[in-house]
């Protein structure tokens, strides 16, 4: 009976769970959200990675030693990508709900609370479509790349790796397509877990294990923020489903029982979550360490997709930030400072993968800056372009690592472009570097401009300074990016192999006879494709928008426009004027011929000015890098020696090299005190609670017994005296009692 009812429920839930997801007491569904059960096949975007995971599990169980897992995963992910594209082309322009399975549904018959429902349902709008396409697309490509990259682990961890990738894609899809915050949370923690899995892939290396652990725990702190934000949102708005949330916020019905502090708290917690996942101050330290994982993982998870989940979250929940605008200022400042800080650290590193990692942190900072200065579009566009160019950078790093037995030190590699077989790698890397440096007309150039310009347009505390800081960061970015490229790919041919064996003996060679192991088809193909993608990522900027002609930014802006993030879109009417009141945004004047003049910079329109400034700055960085690292490499050494010689400046490179001692500060301020506290607590537990309290109380009876023991001395008279005395005592006590309380005679 129970079994059949369970099966019945599952089937029902699968087939028609739209009904489950919608309690009857729900507020009016906003007209433009449709339940699209005819898109049921979209579920396979989620299921295919899962199927891949299960098949990989089978492979592991059957001890498959071929590349089968890689093909399975690639095919499944390709399927997801194709389905995402289909979904995009079939997307009708208004957000859709695609119910899959029911998950948590609480309704209170007493009507004391509004019910809590969180189901496996997709919420498809343009924002999620944008994300899902590049996630699955890059996922497919990088998996294909990894099929070659990971081949040295065939029969050992190969299957495990692809299973991990499948898990990641599964979680990421859940995160992006979720229709409620709880499912998003599932994906959120899921990607964290996948990241843990893959960073710790080389589980026998203590550094990898530690890095994995660090990543998971740091992410958990962020997750804590998300969890608290979910609680707050639910208690304040009574729902955690996006569509209902939008309705509630816009209708203002939540204000009836609002008591005045939650609105301001929600964005802070969301921020904490986003900063954790997207490696911003103060939670960024895990990302550089995460480079202990295999490079495709770094490319996919720690550059292109997962780390942008924070941006996605903020974009997705932008309405909450708009309700409390101060929070956006914080977002902007944290983003800007992180960008600068990470860039300075990047300057001083020698490990190219780490440089890329810090550059990722830095670029993520840009994205948050964009979010903070009300340019969700800029942020999203930068996410989009960054996904490509950073992926290609990491993949080329991976190729180098793969070929040079784990060598990543830029001082020990040079002139790669001249080594046969490494041309594609070098060119791909160049493209990536150009885009990252914001070289004019590359994709990074446009996306970064969209953010930088907005910093000068939007009014906020110190936003202008922030803008200049970001421009300075752009200069640093260009410098350290090309430092890598000029060192590694240009110059004369020189290399030393690394000492890494991928756990394999036939691979690394320490002898003179070491030959770099050039990438073959799969890797080259993927690098080429993504490099082209990185170039082509500037195309959407010039595409026509269908929404609003005032809207600059083309296709990506279009995608953002239809989503929950539209509040941060420049030049657009925000639904509900109430919100406009609290947002001090310069663009308010954009659309009308009102009092507001266009903000200007050096007498030009800000956007135009920014094209020039960032182009110049990027070029300067590039030139500096070329000088110090291509043409006169000895000058770089001299500069370094100079810096280190003078005490008043010597701290700077050292601090930069040691990542501003942030890890050490955390260690000293948080971990060590907690560790000591834990030991104290353990001692407290053993000696005070267990020893003194529990055992002590248990000892009392024995102690008291010892007082009475002398009475049992074996002498008859003594017994008799005690007996008589005891009787007398009790009688006395009784009399006293009776006298004292004046309770007389009989009952």
């Amino acid at each position: 009976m129970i079994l059949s009812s369970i099966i019945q429920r599952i089937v029902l839930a699968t087939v028609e769970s739209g009904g489950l997801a919608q309690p009857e007491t729900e507020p009016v569904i906003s007209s433009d959200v449709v339940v699209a059960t005819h898109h049921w096949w979209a579920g396979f975007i989620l299921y295919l990675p899962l199927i891949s995971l299960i098949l990989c599990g089978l492979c592991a169980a059957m001890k498959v030693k071929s590349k089968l897992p890689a093909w399975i995963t690639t095919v499944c992910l390709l399927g997801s990508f194709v389905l995402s594209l289909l979904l995009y082309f079939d997307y009708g322009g208004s957000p859709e709900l695609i119910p899959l399975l029911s998950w948590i549904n609480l309704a209170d018959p007493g009507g004391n609370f509004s019910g809590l429902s969180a189901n496996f349902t997709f919420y498809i709008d343009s924002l999620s479509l944008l994300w899902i396409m590049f996630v699955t697309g890059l996922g497919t490509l990088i998996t294909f790349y990894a099929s070659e990259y990971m081949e040295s682990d065939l029969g050992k961890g190969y299957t495990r790796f692809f299973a991990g990738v499948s898990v990641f894609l599964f979680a990421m899809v859940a995160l992006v397509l979720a229709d409620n915050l709880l499912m998003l949370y599932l994906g959120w923690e899921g990607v964290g877990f996948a990241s843990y899995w893959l960073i710790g892939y080389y589980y026998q290396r203590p550094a990898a294990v530690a890095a994995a652990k660090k990543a998971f725990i740091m992410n958990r702190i962020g997750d804590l923020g998300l969890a608290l934000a979910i609680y707050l949102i639910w208690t304040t708005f009574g729902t955690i489903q996006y569509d209902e949330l939008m309705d509630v916020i816009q209708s203002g019905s939540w204000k009836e029982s609002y008591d005045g502090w939650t609105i301001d708290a929600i964005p802070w917690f969301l921020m904490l979550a986003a900063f954790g996942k997207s490696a911003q101050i103060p939670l960024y330290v895990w990302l550089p360490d995460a480079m202990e994982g295999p490079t495709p993982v770094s490319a996919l998870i720690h550059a292109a997709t997962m780390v942008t989940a924070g941006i996605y979250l903020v974009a997705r929940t932008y309405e909450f930030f708009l309700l409390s605008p101060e929070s956006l200022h914080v977002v902007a400042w944290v983003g800007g400072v992180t960008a600068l800080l990470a860039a300075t650290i990047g300057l001083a590193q020698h490990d190219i993968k780490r440089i890329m990692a810090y550059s990722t942190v830095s670029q993520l900072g840009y994205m948050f800056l964009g979010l903070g200065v009300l340019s969700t579009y800029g942020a999203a566009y930068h996410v989009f372009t960054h996904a490509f160019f950073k992926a290609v950078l990491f993949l080329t790093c991976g190729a180098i690592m793969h070929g040079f037995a784990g060598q990543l030190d830029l001082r020990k590699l040079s002139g790669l472009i001249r080594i046969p077989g490494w041309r594609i790698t070098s060119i791909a890397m160049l493209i990536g570097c150009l885009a990252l440096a914001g070289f004019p007309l590359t994709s990074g150039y446009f996306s970064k401009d969209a953010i930088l310009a907005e910093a000068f347009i939007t009014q906020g505390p110190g936003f202008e300074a922030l803008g200049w800081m970001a421009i300075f960061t752009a200069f640093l970015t260009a410098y350290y990016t090309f430092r890598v490229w000029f060192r590694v790919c240009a110059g004369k041919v020189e290399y030393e192999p690394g000492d890494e064996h991928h756990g394999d003996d036939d691979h690394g060679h320490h002898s003179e006879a070491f030959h770099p192991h050039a990438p073959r088809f799969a890797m080259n193909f993927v690098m080429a494709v993504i490099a082209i993608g990185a170039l082509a990522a500037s195309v959407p900027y010039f595409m026509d928008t269908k929404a609003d002609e005032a809207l600059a930014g083309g296709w990506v802006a279009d995608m953002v426009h239809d989503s929950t993030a539209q509040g941060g879109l420049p030049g657009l009417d925000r639904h509900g004027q109430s919100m406009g009141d609290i947002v001090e945004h310069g663009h308010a004047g954009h659309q009308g011929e009102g009092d507001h003049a266009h903000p200007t910079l050096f007498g030009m329109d800000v956007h135009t000015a920014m094209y020039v400034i960032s182009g110049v700055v990027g070029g300067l960085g590039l030139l500096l890098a070329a000088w110090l690292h291509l043409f006169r490499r000895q000058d770089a050494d001299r500069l370094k020696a100079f810096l280190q010689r003078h005490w008043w400046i010597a701290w700077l490179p050292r601090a930069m090299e040691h990542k501003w001692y942030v890890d050490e500060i955390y260690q000293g301020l948080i971990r060590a005190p907690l560790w000591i506290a834990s030991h104290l607590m353990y001692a407290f537990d053993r000696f005070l609670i267990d020893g003194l309290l529990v055992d002590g109380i248990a000892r009392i009876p024995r102690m008291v017994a010892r007082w009475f023991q002398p009475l049992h001395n074996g002498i008859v008279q003594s017994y008799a005296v005690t007996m008589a005395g005891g009787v007398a005592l009790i009688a006395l006590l009784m009399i006293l009692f009776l006298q004292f309380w004046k309770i007389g005679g009989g009952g």
Partner: protein
Amino acid sequence: MIWGWILLLLPIAGGLVVVGSSARAAKSIALLTTLATFGASIAAAIEFDVWGTGDFGLVSSIPWLPEVGINLSIGADSVAMMLVLLTTLLMPLAVLGSWTAVGERLKEYYGWLLLIESAMIGVFLARDLVFFYICFEFTLVPMYFLIAIYGGSGRARACVKFFLYTFTGSLIALVGFLFVAWSYAETTGSWSFQIATLCEYASESLTLREQVWVLTALVIGFAVKIPLFPVHTWLPLAHTEAPTAGSVILAGVLLKLGTYGIFRFVLPMTPEAVVEWAPVLGILAIIGILYAGLICWVQTDVKKLVAYSSVSHLGFCVLGLFALNPMGLQGAVLYMINHGLSTGALFFLVGMMYERYHTRDMNAIGGLAKRMPVWAFFMVFFVLASVGLPGLNGFVSEFLCLIGTFAAGDSGSYPGVMGPWFAAFAALGMVIAAMYLLIMVGKIVFGSLKEPATDDHHGLPADLSAREITVLVPLAVLCVLLGVQPWIAMDAMVGSVNETLAAYPEIVKDAMQQVADAGSSVLSGGVNP
């Protein structure tokens, strides 16, 4: 209905057969019995036609001591039924898990296992207070012997502490129970120990002061069992010394007797006192979560770590119970089940490791993933379930407990007496849990291989045998199932939960009103506002 009695008596009967049979057959008979009991519980669950409602099924009653209204009265609501299912599921696994670990005095061992199964089922099926108390207490005996005979080197101290501590606690609870029963007798003129009757009576007729006393007595009794800070210190000791199956049962079911007791007695009996004291208990639970979590961090004994983690985890459960809203309560009940599954499995895994290496010292062992990949997989899996990774079971219950606590603020849509601060501090436990469990995994599962020299593997393969995998797979499957489709359990329990909570909204509102009138906070209100 007959199924209840079958469930109760089948394990005892099997135990008698085991004791009467030869030592060689003991294992098989025990396994068959536990499997049969599991089958019977499934049958009972199918027969059980009140899922989702607040009613009792499998109801049956035999008069025992009519003078004072004591009956052998059994029956289960859906929450109890689920816990029965958990018990009967864990028992065959416990038997399988002890297959090679226990080598001597087999008949006794399996006899005790079967006896404790009956006692645990009895606790959940009891509808009579005295019968409940008997079973509740009786669980101590088999566990005492399991630790005392089959335990580790420090077992003598551990089992005595375990026994006396919990025995003392439950005696205090007994006095509370008797007080309620007497009060009932005085009011109505006849004695009754029917739980439902007493709950109804107590909630309506006891004064606040009396309720507070009853609450104190009951909570002392149950808190020791849960265990709640600061009466938790017996648990790490008992867990460390208990044999694997003992730990599994202890963590899987016995600890739940405490939370079940709170669910079954404290909440319905003393609602007004609960509303007044829930913040205090909530704070204790939170202290437990954080304190035990941090202590886990510095453990080197894996089993002790998992034991302290139980203290930490059950704090969430208690928090959910005293959130006094459907989210929290459903979360708490789910937590009971989920913690049984995942922590039970963790103890199995630690036991499997111990059986091979004869040590639980994290510093002596490392990188076992290389030697035992399958074991490592399960270890990581259950650690994640325990950490509360969404998609696995632990998450749902933890989330519900916390959101319940969070929403229980005076500003929430469901009035309650805790609130955001409670939830925020408790949620820190999520981070701490990740910290200590992953550190543990990082040490023993990952890293470079480090094995203590041992010459005795009990003839076990390097990695898990098919039998051991069989033990773990059902738990893993349930972890996923309850993580992805938790509504199976939630829909089933919703009636019981709402029944339990029926009286609360009014009381909470009144209390809020009073506090607002007095202009003081709930906490400072105390007993005598």
